[in-house]
């Protein structure tokens, strides 16, 4: 099964195109691909429950991860993330690259 890792670095409160990654992730998952959406930098801001997290929590078949370092930098508690979102180290990106996944930065 083809693997994709989409990296969202943009803040949905600052950029009007962050739906791109969610939409692409959803479409890739629907097409039977293994998909991870990895949030980094200000891209982690919507993982707070209620803070525009709806786009993330409604993704079906997509693993949503948030960079632990980015969370810590912004004072976001790893134990209080929106439903379906988990904290993970940046190693996830390097693992995906090493394993030949298609990795796309946004």
């Amino acid at each position, binding site marked *: 099964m083809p693997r994709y890792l989409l990296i969202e670095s943009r803040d949905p409160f600052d950029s009007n195109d962050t739906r791109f990654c969610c939409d692409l992730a959803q479409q890739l998952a629907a097409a039977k691909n293994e998909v991870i959406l990895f949030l980094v930098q200000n891209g982690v801001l919507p993982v707070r429950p209620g803070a525009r997290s709806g786009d993330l929590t409604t993704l079906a078949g997509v693993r949503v991860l948030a960079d632990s*370092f980015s969370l810590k930098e912004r004072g976001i508690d790893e134990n209080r993330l929106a439903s379906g979102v988990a904290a993970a180290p*940046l*190693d996830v990106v390097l693992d995906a*690259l*090493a394993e*030949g*996944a298609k990795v796309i*930065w946004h």
Partner: protein
Amino acid sequence: MADKKTITIAIMDAPYENARSTTALRLIDLAAKRGYNINVFAYEGAVLQPFAAQTPHANTVHGRSVEEENHFIPKDAIAALMREAERNGGKIDWVNCGLCVDERGAANAIPGVRRGSPADFWQMSEASDNTLVIATR
């Protein structure tokens, strides 16, 4: 190393301007710790990341000396990453886009940085296990 990998990363951001630079250096650091070979293609403002003339400064507003300020200097971080990669059996091949260097007068880069062109990026990508392009928006 049986699982030694070669990863190519393209970056475009000038130093001190965007968190993308920090994330790129964090990724390179992780790869260096794993002993991977890492190709970096620096394009546009990113050619200033390893600019050798970067100098730490004091902070007179807050009354801190150069040592107390301990300002982050990207070229020192990159040199440290190159040493880290070598310690772990890997290598960082850092290529600065030549035209971007000329436009910015950024030829004075730290040792280990070489001049190249987008053709080098294509060749590095072809020879790599995978490639990540960290584009400026």
